[in-house]
C-alpha cells in the first residue's frame, strides 16, 4: 500500500512546520490493517484443520485446563501448593483467599480444592 503511505507522508509534511519547534511529527511505520497477520503465519494457520470454537461444556473444560496448567506450574511436584508458593508465583488471588480454599486447613491445597472453591462461587 505505497499510495497509502504517500498520502500520509504528504499530509504529515503539510502539518510539520506547525509542530516542528517542539516535537517531531509522529511516525507511521506501516499501514493500518488490523486485524492482520503476516502471510507466513496466515499460511501456517490455514494449513491446519479447523478447530470448532469451544462453547458450553467444551469451553468450561478449556477454562479448567487453563487454570489447572497455571496451578500446576506453581505447585510442588506432588501437586500441592502453599500460600507462599502461590504468592511467589504471582497467584495473588489464590494467596489472598487461601484459607477459604484450604477448607481442610492442611496449609497446602490441591487443584481440586481450588476448583471446588471456584465452583462454589455464584455462577458467572
Amino acid at each position, binding site marked *: 500500500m505505497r499510495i*497509502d503511505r504517500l498520502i500520509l507522508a504528504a*499530509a504529515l509534511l503539510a*502539518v510539520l512546520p506547525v509542530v516542528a519547534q517542539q516535537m517531531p511529527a509522529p511516525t507511521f511505520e506501516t499501514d493500518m490493517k488490523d486485524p492482520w497477520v503476516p502471510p507466513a503465519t496466515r499460511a501456517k494457520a490455514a494449513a491446519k484443520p479447523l478447530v470448532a470454537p469451544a462453547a458450553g461444556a467444551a*469451553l468450561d473444560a478449556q477454562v479448567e485446563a*487453563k487454570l489447572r496448567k497455571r496451578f500446576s506450574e506453581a505447585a510442588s511436584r506432588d501437586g500441592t501448593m502453599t500460600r507462599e508458593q502461590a504468592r511467589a508465583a504471582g497467584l495473588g488471588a489464590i494467596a489472598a483467599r487461601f484459607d477459604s480454599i484450604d477448607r481442610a486447613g492442611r496449609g497446602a491445597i490441591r487443584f481440586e480444592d481450588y476448583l471446588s472453591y471456584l465452583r462454589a462461587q455464584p455462577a458467572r
Partner: protein
Amino acid sequence: MEIFARLRALAAAAFLAAACSGGGGGSSPPPPTTPPPTGLFTDSVTYSSAANASLPTAAEITSVTHHQITINGTVLNYTATVGHMSALSASQAPQASFFYVAYTLDGAAPATRPVTFFYNGGPGSATVWLHLGSFGPKRIDTGEPNMSGVPPYPLVDNAESMLDISDLVFVDAVGTGFSQAIAPFTNSSFWGVDADAAVFRDFVMRYATVNNRGTSPKFLYGESYGGPRTAVLADLLEAAGVHLKGVVLQSPALNYNSNCGILDIVLSCTSYIPSYGAVGSWFGFSNPSASVAQLPSFMAEARTFVDTQYEPSIQAWLNSGALPPDDQITRVANISGLGRPHWVANPNRNPEYYRLNLNPGTLYGRYDGRVSIPNTFPPNQAPDPSSTLISASFSQRLVQHLTALGYTTPSSYTMLGNAIQVWNFHHDGRDLPDTVPDLASAMTQNPQLKVLAVNGYHDTVTPFHTTELDLARVTSSNVGVRNYVGGHMTYLENSSRRAMKTDLTAFYGSALAN
C-alpha cells in the same frame, strides 16, 4: 491553566534501585534521579520503536497539569498526568517503560473512584485513537463519515467524556507511542500475545501501587487487537489477585480463527454479511436499503438469514463446492447490494472483495464502510480512506495536546510500529489466538466481572456479528453486546458516541452495583 511538572517519586526511584541491587534478576542500573523540571517538561530520552530497542534505564517522570471540563452541566476539576511508568517483574525488575496519559478527577476517594485503562490494538498501534477520539476530556471532531471539514480536524472539549464516571488512563503498548523496553529486555520481548498481556498486567499493578489505587474499582477498555489483549490481560489480572469490575471490548478481534478477513482461504465469511448489508444500505445498493432508523431490524433479519440458512450452505460449499440454493444467492445479493454474478462466482465473498466491487470506480473504507473515495488506485494498492483521511489529524493533534499538557520530547511518537510484522500470535496451543477461553477464565475466577462489547454496524474489519457469535460461546448474563451506527471506531460518529456514553454509564453503574 496552572502548569507544573514534578518528579513522580524519588521514592519510586529508590525502590527500583533497591530492587535492582537485590539481585532479583534485574540487570539495569538504578534509575537516575532527575531534578524536578519546572514549567514545561522536556523528556530528553530518545525513544525507539525498533524491535531490538532497549532503554538502559528508565525514570518515572511525569508532567502534571490541572484543568476543568463541563459534563452534563457539571464543572469537573481534573488533573492530567503525562509521562512514563515502569512495569516491574515479579522480582521487581524493570521490564518496560510505559508512556501514559492519565486524567484523574480531583478530590475523589481512591477506594470508590473507578479507574479505566484504555489501549488500542494493531498489534503495534499507539493508543492515540481512543485517547483523542473517544472518551477523554478532548476529542478530535472528524465529522465522520463525510469529513467535509479541512484537516487537521479540530480538537474540542468532549461533552461525552467518561471522566464523570471514571478516571481514564490511556497507555501505549511497548514499541508504540513513547513506550519502550528496559534492558535486558528489548521491545520485541513483549511482541507476542502472552508477553504483551503480561507486561500490561505489570503496568496496571504498578500504576495501582504507585497511585494508591489498589482498592479502586478497575475497568479495561481495549479496541480491535486490544480486545484479545483485554481477554488475556483480564485472565492474568484475576489470577494475580487484581479484580476487575468490568471490561469494554471496542470492535474486538477476540478469535482470529473466526474472522475471514484474516483467514478467508478456509473460513466462512457469512458473519460479515450483515455488515455488508449496513454498508450497502448506506449507499442505497441493498434491496431494499434500510434507513438508519430501520437498521437494527434489517440487521436482525440479516443475522437470522445468515445463521440459519446461508452459513450451513457456505459450510457445504467449503466442503464440497456445492453452490447455495438460488434463492439464497438472490437474498445475499439483495442484502449486500453486491450483484448476483459476484456471489454465483464465489458465494463466500471476503470484505476486501466487497469494498472494491460494490460499485466499480468507488473505493469504500475498511474501518468505516460509510467513507468512500474515487478508486483511482492500482489493484492491491487500495488504501482505506476511513483511515487515511483522519490519520494526519490525529498525529498532529496528539503532539499539540501533549505539548499543552506540558510534555515534550525530541522523540517521534510512533503511531503505528512494525510489531505486527514479527508478532508472536501463538496462544494456548494455537497459531492464531482464540481468546474467548481467556475471557471465560477471567469470568470463572471473578463471577462478578461484567463484559460489554461495543461494535459498529459499518465496520468491515471486525464485524459486529462475528463478535456476537464469538461472545455467544460464553453463557453468562454478564456479557452484553451493543451495536451502533458507524465503523470500527464508533465513537467518531457523533450520534453513536452519545449513545455509547449513555450505555457505558449504565454499564459502569451495573458493574459497580455488584
